[in-house]
């Protein structure tokens, strides 16, 4: 596959007329994509194209909409390796992991068809002289904003349910991952996408602002930072006619109760904090460890494993555990975050360094910040903060000491501890003796606090892609046996 480096408006690929931008591989520095952003006028044209396509698409029988997404799945299977390569190049994640992302896109189709039927769909109840029917109708034109960490899987998790429900889409990918979006749209076209059903507008904040401010959209589905999510939430506050679904970040706690198996505990922590180089919203950011010998030994073993963790280019052989961050600038930001935490008094147990000059390859950081007033920020990279605790209540207090509430984990403990953890922790993904990363597409995905706006995605994405219509219907109009009081006909 080859990038078009253009926008898709209706059925026409056209060059962006806004600011030029490029995307480079953050490890090899190879130029992957260059083009120009969509201007406000081009965003308007994309929304208009989606609006024009909506009535016919919404009237298309569900079976036909399902057939399109199933053909799209077949196209993804054919272009699996091209897409995985593009995702690895663009995000900096290892090729083995990028392949699992394409696998998740493929798996999303069957899950979304089942979720459409179970969460929305149609059902009826016979009431004798009438039938009560519940149907679901599409909202109209959905703006979908993709994040850079899963540039294929996450927008796909909005677009497939949106299309199944009968919506049309204007897709604005992250400006850090234009290539994956470009190839994904070509896959949709190869599957027979009708004109205007998905439109692609490339660009950064200006393009995003033009789309979110466009009165022609009926909803906006956003995966990204809490900062931008907060701006959108305020922007949509007085627009009751639009649906807004926000999937934002987390400052996720991983609590160690005790350590029944030290190696297994270390692996669970590595997988929670450093998978994808910490570029998953479910990554553990705060490790909450008991004071005393058990905790000391665990941290020693963890530091030791960190020193042996293989961080190398996406396509290296042998394969790395993780590779680059999305950009050299993102890596600079993480190094600065480490400096800031150290300046606040944090003790660096494992120091993050740039593995190769000029790249976004970073070794993991492990920083003890116990008792320090550290900001409640999501550091989107391989940086894990340690908090030591004296007793269980303090562990829970520390774990919940965040404005976010996306994921949380417990290592060790008995069933009673787990039950207590489940009742007291504030998060939407809560795991026991399992890594915090790697959520199941069969379950809803979302959190509380500033992790979103109570519109969970994944299995529940169907919910925000349609609205319910309740009907009482009868195919003949007849007079009841008894008239209401006061009525004479």
């Amino acid at each position, binding site marked *: 596959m080859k990038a078009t480096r253009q926008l898709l408006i209706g059925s026409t690929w056209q060059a962006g007329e806004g600011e030029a931008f490029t995307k480079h591989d953050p490890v090899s520095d190879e130029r992957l994509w260059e083009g120009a952003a969509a201007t406000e006028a081009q965003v308007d044209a994309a929304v208009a194209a989606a609006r024009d396509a909506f009535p016919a698409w919404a009237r298309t029988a569900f079976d036909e909409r399902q057939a399109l997404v199933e053909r799209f799945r077949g196209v993804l299977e054919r272009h699996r390796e091209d897409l995985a390569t593009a995702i690895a190049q663009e995000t900096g994640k290892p090729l*083995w992991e990028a392949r699992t992302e394409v696998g998740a896109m493929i798996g999303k189709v069957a899950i979304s068809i089942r979720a459409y039927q179970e969460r929305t769909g149609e059902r009826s109840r016979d009431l004798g002289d009438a039938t009560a029917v519940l149907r679901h109708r599409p909202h109209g034109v959905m703006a979908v904003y993709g994040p850079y960490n899963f540039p294929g899987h996450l927008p796909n998790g909005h677009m497939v349910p949106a299309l199944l429900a009968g919506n049309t889409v204007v897709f604005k990918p992250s400006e850090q991952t234009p290539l994956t979006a470009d190839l994904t749209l070509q896959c949709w076209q190869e599957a027979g996408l009708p004109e205007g059903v998905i439109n692609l507008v490339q660009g950064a904040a200006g393009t995003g602002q033009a789309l979110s401010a466009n009165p022609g959209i009926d909803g906006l589905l956003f995966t990204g930072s809490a900062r931008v999510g907060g701006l959108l939430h305020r922007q949509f506050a007085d627009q009751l006619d639009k649906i807004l679904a926000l999937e934002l970040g987390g400052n996720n706690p991983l609590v160690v109760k005790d350590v029944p198996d030290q*190696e297994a505990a270390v*692996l669970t922590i590595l997988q929670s904090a450093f998978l994808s180089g910490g570029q998953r919203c479910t990554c553990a950011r705060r490790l909450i460890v008991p004071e005393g010998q058990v905790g000391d030994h665990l941290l020693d073993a963890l530091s030791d494993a960190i020193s042996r963790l293989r961080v190398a280019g996406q396509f290296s052989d042998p394969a790395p555990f993780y590779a680059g961050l999305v950009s050299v600038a993102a890596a600079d930001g993480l190094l600065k975050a480490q400096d800031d935490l150290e300046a606040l008094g944090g003790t660096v147990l494992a120091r993050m360094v740039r593995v190769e000059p000029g790249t976004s390859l970073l070794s993991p950081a492990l920083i003890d910040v116990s008792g320090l007033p550290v900001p409640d920020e999501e550091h989107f990279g391989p940086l894990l903060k340690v908090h030591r605790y004296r007793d269980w209540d303090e562990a829970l207090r520390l774990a919940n000491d965040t404005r976010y509430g996306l994921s949380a984990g417990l290592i060790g403990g008995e069933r009673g501890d787990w039950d207590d953890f489940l009742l007291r922790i504030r998060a939407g993904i*809560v795991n026991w*003796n399992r890594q915090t990363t790697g959520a199941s597409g069969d379950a809803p995905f979302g959190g509380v606090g500033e992790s979103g706006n109570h519109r969970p995605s994944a299995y529940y994405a169907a919910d925000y892609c349609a609205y319910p219509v309740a009907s009482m219907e009868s195919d003949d109009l007849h007079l009841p046996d008894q008239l209401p009081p006061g009525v004479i006909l």
Partner: protein
Amino acid sequence: MILQVIPSLSAALPVRSFTGAADYCAYPVASMESEALVLPETLPPGVTL
């Protein structure tokens, strides 16, 4: 042993009822849980313990 709290959503959440007030009175919590902390047979790429 791995238990998934939501083994089948169709069992846990059969259908949206005709009245949906329950939806906004709770938030979903998805868990992967295992009573035992065990090392898998194969380690992920790049990990040495």
